[in-house]
């Protein structure tokens, strides 16, 4: 059983999933190292297990779930600002409502 605010779902994964709201500046343990969070992370969101480079495949559940579009440092938030689908692009609420 994992402890702390982040879960490693599969040994091959290069991201961890937040299971308990974590704060910027909070120290967490990553593979035995103490690392300081640079972002606030809410439940269900992901952080980098190690330094990630543009083009790196992101592995979660032991399977690829997309690729990095910018670099990200260890423990950084990994989400739509720095990674993308290898299939169909994702969208936000901002795609409509600009006509007013």
């Amino acid at each position, binding site marked *: *059983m994992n402890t702390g605010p982040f*879960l490693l*779902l599969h040994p091959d994964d290069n991201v961890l*999933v*937040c*299971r*308990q*709201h974590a704060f910027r500046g909070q120290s967490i343990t990553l593979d035995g190292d103490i690392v300081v969070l640079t972002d606030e992370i*809410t*439940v*269900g*969101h*992901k952080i980098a297990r190690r330094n990630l480079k543009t083009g790196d495949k*992101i592995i*979660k*559940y032991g*399977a*690829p*779930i*997309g690729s990095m579009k910018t670099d990200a440092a260890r423990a950084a938030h*990994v*989400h*739509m600002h720095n*990674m*993308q*689908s*290898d*299939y*169909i*692009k*994702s*969208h*936000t*609420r901002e*795609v409509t409502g600009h006509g007013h």
Partner: protein
Amino acid sequence: MVIKIGDMNTSFQAWLRPDGRKGIRNVICVAYLVECAHHVARKIVNTCDDGEVHLIGFPGCYPNEYAYQMMESLCTHPNVGGVVLVSLGCESFNREALKRHIEASGRPVETYVIQNEGGTLETIRKGVEAVRRIQAIARQTPRGDMDVSELIIGTICGGSDGTSGITANPAVGRAFDALGAAGAACIFEETGELVGCETIMASRAITPELGAELEAAVIKAEAYYTIMGYGSFAPGNAEGGLTTQEEKSMGAYSKSGSAPICGVIKPGDIPPSGGLYLLDVVPDGEPRFGFPNISDNAEIVEMIACGAHLTLFTTGRGSVVGSAISPVIKVCANPETYRKLAGDMDIDAGRIMEGRATLDEVGAEITGLVLRVAAGEQSLSEQMGHQEFILTYKAFDPVGPACLPLRGKPAF
């Protein structure tokens, strides 16, 4: 690991329909056959003020074979005891054929055509009387034993977030493994939310030909959604930590558990055996009528048309919907959502996230609740009167022979 349901009571009382099928509810459907008859049908249902009288219907005026076949399947679903059809009069829907089909299933049915009945108020008055007559007949339906092996169970995820694929979805997968092993037919769906999982999923097919069909269904979905311009991915998914379609897919896929996949069905097809089936919800041919399913309830309705007696609905962000005809059990993935919406959530799978329960424990809890709801216990959405229903235009080709290796074979 497979949860054993040996200690649970797997037999319960059901309604024995004249066509040989068995229902866990005795619902009267009031069905509008075009949007123009919707208000009258809704007023009939509201006036009856009875949790067993449900509103369903099709809004379109143009003919559509899919919608017609869906209405046949829904009006003769084993949970349905009788039907009142409400037509405006000039729409395309073949009300005579639908009425004949319902009659042939042995169910009571009456049709009211607003243009022939004297308008809105007169049709509402006659419709309410018709519901009471039909309900009186439906209440005479004999009761008898039904076993878990005769159940058809659907699963869907809605309002998924980064917790769904870790807690609620794999917990439902555990329940599906147990229920499928006990002989129930278990249906998972939304091929657009399996994009990225097609190769892994194909390896679970009981024949290589079926594996190819599973992959083809997902490739079709990817092409369809790409033309639509959006994947099956809502802004709330991203707010809850999901970044990509394939990440959402990996989580959604875990609802299917670990059993072999016995076949691919399309809306309205009844699984020919127990075990695990994929429902292909993406239309065939060139996209014609827009998004495959405009929201979750359209998929729930399609699983019900495949005979689903009840639906397991996993949610991270917190969907509150139920459904007409078949009860919906809500499995909440996110512990924070559960604390906000506890009154809507039948199962708190977020405990897994916080280390307060295991997947096996929550899976067993879901399995137990399925059996209790089948035996008559109301789910929370059912208690609160949720009876959402959507049916829109679509087009499908029939499934090919490779899709159903067990059709016509002894039980798997």
